[in-house]
């Protein structure tokens, strides 16, 4: 299958990106070229193959349930674009 302009706009929206109208055709071409490359996987017979999530088949480590992180709110918020009274500010979402 091939992505058209409206597919590209939909994907961009899902990814929370805006693509300039003038660039949509270029993105559609590039994404289709990449997907054509990806389609070459189709030639492989993987019916009996279990998917590989981790090269060493590692398992999630557990740790004791103790506090290891300390409150560094001021430090972390010092690099935030907009904060007030210890919270991050975003445009109003509830009227």
């Amino acid at each position, binding site marked *: 299958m091939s992505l058209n302009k409206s597919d590209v706009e939909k994907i961009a929206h899902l*990814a929370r990106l805006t693509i300039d109208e003038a660039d949509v055709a270029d993105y559609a071409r590039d994404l289709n*070229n990449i997907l054509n490359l990806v389609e070459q996987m189709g030639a492989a017979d993987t019916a009996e193959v279990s998917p590989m999530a981790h090269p*060493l088949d590692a398992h999630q480590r557990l740790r004791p349930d103790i506090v290891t992180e300390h409150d560094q709110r001021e430090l972390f918020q010092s690099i935030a674009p907009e904060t007030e009274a210890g919270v991050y500010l975003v445009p109003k979402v509830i009227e």
Partner: protein
Amino acid sequence: MHNKTLSELSEMLHKGEVTSVELTRHFLDRIKAHNTELNAFISVCEESALAQAAAADEQLKNKTAGKLTGIPMAHKDIFCTKGVRTSCASKMLDSFVSPYDATVVEKIAASGMVMLGKTNMDEFAMGSSNETSYYGPVKNPWDTDRVPGGSSGGSAAAVAARLAPIATGTDTGGSIRQPSSLCNLTGLKPTYGRISRYGMIAFASSLDQAGPMAANAEDAALLMNAMSGFDERDSTSVEREVPDYTATLNDSLEGLRIGLPKEYFGEGLDPQVAATIETAIKEFEKLGATIKEISLPNTHLAVPTYYVVAPAECSSNLSRMDGVRFGHRAENPRDLQDLYQRSRSEGFGAEVKRRIMIGTYVLSAGYYDAYYLKAQQCRRLISDEFQQAFNEVDVIMGPTAPTTAFKLGEKTDDPVAMYLADIYTISTNLAGLPGMSIPAGFAEGLPTGLQIIGNYFDEGRLLNIAHRYQQVTNWHKQVPAAFA
């Protein structure tokens, strides 16, 4: 002074023949003289470097110094450095000053090394030519009309031009090995999990791995000693003892079984690059190794598989860049949606957007089985066939990259052509195996790289093989004339 090995520099420092401050100034001066031309550094940390050097000199005086104390180095700008801008070569993080150090940064600082600055790279490590950087492309010191490779192009150019004795890089699909090949360096991508990823800005979490980019194998071994080891802050870090990588450098290669995958020598490989690789292989025969042709028939699946797995993971990892907690934020957003969309669209470059969109698409409802699941299955096929090969041979060798350094701008309009620059390196990331690139000669004045792939945790063996080769060849000692 800038052409000395780490061991030589260490000896000079310990004997008091030079101070760390003098050595650091020497490299800072070289950066000042050459960085405008090469664009290898995004940030130069003169003040903190000199302070670290002064502290190192104290330790040297007190006899509390270690092997690496006082030796300057550079970090790829993907590693978080407390109090120093960590940009990942993106407009998104242009003003991001990390509140903490990456484990790799912490460990290298603890070894007493001096950080000269942060090196240029492809934006969020997505690229093979260092041309996607927000701060502009890096030039290859061997020919400044050409790319240094990527994504660790700034680290490669910095070490190749001797603006730093050694540097760190990261490798998701070849980003240490391919630039090492294009710039005549010794670069090692260790086994997945060998080195902590904590504080290393994530691109594709199941593939990313940090490693050294050095002038020779012994230097790389020394930095590996400092970088490696278990870290509880990285859930994929492997709990396994770290050997002294310098202890086995001189082991004999007698009886070493080298496999040459026929798929790595086929169509697409530049004949002149192939000739240098064949000559290098003969050198290993002289050192006592035996050569066997092998087959890795699923090699052709590696690039397609990678361009599902890596974008999928990057689309997830980069969702944290939303203009709220750190990084670029669009001005006067209309609403929350507008804040997200414009912050991200203004902050990311075109290649990053392409990969986020591919990742978003392959993970979107209804496509999971066709893309992501299929890719993870292909990944198993690739990994299994490496394991079969390692039943017959100890290491696998071939070219690192299909060509020497290409011209700036040559592949920027064709993402897929750019992706194929990593055709020989991507498989090892998918399998999680260690891989190395070492200087193997020159084709029309440009360096070529021999890739050596080992089984899991065989870094010591790879460094040993590289070191023995470097005892009988001098390709790794060649430096670009303009920066000698």
